[in-house]
């Protein structure tokens, strides 16, 4: 894998504005983000020969290629499992580039997830799909366990029971995210920090999860341009090398309901973490800042443990003194995360990782040489380590 590490780089990032009602189609959003990312890289649509997105994305690769007048596509791929796909789209792109299957691959994700189909509502289609995912959901949805927040709440309650974590500990993640979002002009909650008291007084959604433990629902799109590091060095925005890229699923894995293992945590992100360290030759001590997928606050604590930033059950102590806020030992989600900036299925977090490596984040971590980015947890997931 040494050959893979650093062979491909992120050369461009692009996004639409993040809103609650974009007023345009999902395909248009993805096209706008792709054009912005190509402009950032100093490349043209005609340079693109590969496209990757999520299986959940409503805009096909060929539809996007048509809109932008792209030429021959040599590589196209889709990744399953909701937000767990985010970093894996970049992994797919990087593997295609590193193996010479494609020269310039764009990973994209665009949706009207607030003004259109809202993931926070009960997704009837997920329960009625006639495939193994639908069969899996038969053990939860008919019982009323049918929203992402509720599925996480089941794990969060057990985590609290096992390790003594509290709702306040979850709240500290939200406070950190919203502090970072407050200084990010692109964040939906720009200028709107919260206190722990705000978190504690927010209404229950799925006890023990409160409203402010749950990420936003957002409209928008993000695109990431991947090409060889060699080529990227000469492009407009330079290269952010992909030092490691991994997917992970653990034994007896389900989508948001892996409840039948001895420990109902999120070992799948541990699978990703071990592979990231192996590929990059780095360890937790080498990571200056991280973007940890924060659709729900408890998962940020569990990720810190699974990735080895602290021991099992110790995340509540790790974050107690503001370690994950800017200025702390490991600033997390410096763009504001999906709780503060926007929920673009984790793709906006990859863009923030790129900004940290370029030194252009609104909450720049001085001297950060490596950033770790994760995708949606509770599902088969993925992660990246980016460098300079």
């Amino acid at each position, binding site marked *: 894998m040494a050959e893979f590490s650093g062979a491909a780089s992120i050369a461009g990032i692009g996004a639409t504005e993040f809103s609650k009602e974009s007023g345009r189609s999902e395909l248009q959003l993805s096209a706008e983000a792709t054009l912005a990312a190509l402009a950032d890289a100093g490349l043209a649509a005609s340079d693109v020969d590969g496209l990757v997105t999520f299986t959940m994305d409503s805009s096909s690769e060929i539809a996007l290629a048509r809109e932008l007048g792209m030429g021959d596509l040599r590589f196209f791929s889709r990744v399953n499992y909701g937000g767990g796909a985010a970093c894996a789209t970049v992994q797919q792109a990087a593997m295609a580039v590193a193996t010479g299957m494609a020269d310039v691959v764009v990973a994209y994700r665009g949706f009207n997830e607030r003004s259109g189909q809202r993931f926070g509502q009960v997704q009837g289609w997920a329960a009625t799909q006639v495939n193994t995912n639908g069969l899996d959901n038969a*053990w939860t949805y008919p019982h*009323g366990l049918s929203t992402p927040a*509720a599925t996480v709440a089941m794990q969060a309650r*057990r985590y609290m029971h096992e390790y003594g974590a509290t709702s306040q500990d979850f709240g500290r993640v939200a406070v950190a995210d919203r502090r970072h979002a407050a200084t990010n002009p692109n964040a939906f909650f720009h200028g709107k920090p919260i206190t722990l008291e705000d978190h504690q007084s927010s209404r*229950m959604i799925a*006890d*023990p999860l409160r409203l402010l433990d749950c990420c936003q629902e957002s409209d928008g799109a993000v695109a990431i341009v991947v090409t060889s590091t060699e080529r990227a060095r000469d492009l407009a925005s330079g290269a952010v090398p992909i030092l490691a890229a991994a997917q992970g699923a653990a034994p007896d894995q389900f989508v948001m309901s892996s*409840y039948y293992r001895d420990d109902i945590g999120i070992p799948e992100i541990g699978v990703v973490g071990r592979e990231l360290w192996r590929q990059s030759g780095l360890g937790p001590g080498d990571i200056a800042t991280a973007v940890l997928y924060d659709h729900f606050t408890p998962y940020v604590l569990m990720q810190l443990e699974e990735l080895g930033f602290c021991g099992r059950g110790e995340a509540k102590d790790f974050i107690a003194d503001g370690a994950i806020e800017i200025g702390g030992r490991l600033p997390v989600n410096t763009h504001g995360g999906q709780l503060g900036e926007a929920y673009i299925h984790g793709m906006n977090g990859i863009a923030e990782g790129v900004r940290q490596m370029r030194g252009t984040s609104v909450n720049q971590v001085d001297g950060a040489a490596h950033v770790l980015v994760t995708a949606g947890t509770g599902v088969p997931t993925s992660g990246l380590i980016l460098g300079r």
Partner: protein
Amino acid sequence: MTDLEQQVEAIKARGDSPAREALDEVNQPMIRHWAEAIGDTNPRWSAGEAPPAMAQVWTMYGLDPNRPSTDPLHETMRLFDEAGYTAVLGTNCDQTYTRTLKLGERPRITSRLHSVVGPKRTGVGKGYFVTTTSTWVVGPEADPETVATMTFRVLKFKPGTGRPAVDRSATVRPVINRDTQFFWDGTAAGELRVQTCDACGELRHPPGPVCPSCHAMDRGYVVASGRGSVHSFLVHHAPQIPGKTLPLPIALVDLVEGVRMVGEVDADVQIGDDVEVWFDRIDDDLTLAKWHKAGTAPEVAVQEDPASDLPPFALDITPTFVVSTALATRDFQDVHHDRVRAQAAGSRDIFINILTTTGLVQRYVTDWAGPDAQIRSCALRLGAPAYPGDRLQFSGVIVSEQDGITTIDVTGRVSGGDHVTARVELTRSATTSIQPRGGDRG
């Protein structure tokens, strides 16, 4: 006292309305239409007598939208309509009958407003319970003969102010295939089935086609004891979930057999609590395994087939039935025949009217008691609406038999719960002399 309350008091103070005569005398064509629609084959209804359940039919207004200002129910409804309490739901209809009406008789009705109670917070919305009492008489004005009485209660409420109605039939359905069918067949049969590998004996839930341990595909199941403990739980508050009442506690249960399962649970559990399974039949297609704390009764009673002294009777409700019975009872309210208007009013579909429910309950009882039985009184309490596509299942329990009067409690159940519970009093012989009861005349 508010203006509304003052106006209500004024209507109450009027007492009995002037007698209003039926538009037609008791006649065979209307009786025949009614008996055909209800399905009541009692030969007495083609031999000069009218069914007691038709008492109200004779004095229905029909399609004419105008109502005399002397009608206390309609005047009260008008007051509440103007105050924003525009929706109406029948809750109780208690009738007593002195004797059957005969062909050629022309009953007169007098009504009075008995009481208005509220405002109350109810499941459907903020509203008032409006109770009227009515009496039907025949004969000369100087010496009227009471033939029937009615106490009628409706809830007049502000639409959109209640808890959203929970329609259990909207529960999300499981995708089932040949690997999982046995589990759902089990819940329907009142068994909690756990897959077992016939080769190595390993238990497994959720089930699948291959044993992950030994790769055998020869599998069966064991029936679990239904005991376990809470591994974790949550309480769902938002958003709404189809078919469920919120807040909704859901647990992950460690079965004593060693597998785990998700299911609804009592509200006050904690991790580690012992729980026991119970089976909640949603409808013919779905029964859910739910959990309650060990040593306590489930918070919702298990819906078993009710004990019945009377032979059960099931009626498959069709749009034709709903519409034909509404018209045969001269009830032209749009919610009983116009699906679009019914849905606009917040209903799932058109639904059976109260006069028909009254007729069905009495038909059910007299089909059992025989044509000579005489209904003396029928007190209805109304519940879940009866929609087309559903099945209305009647059962009846004899409460007492004394002084020549048989008292029967009738339940008419639909998938949404009890459509009607009714207490019916009857005498076994039509010739038994019955004195009018005092009745609730306010």
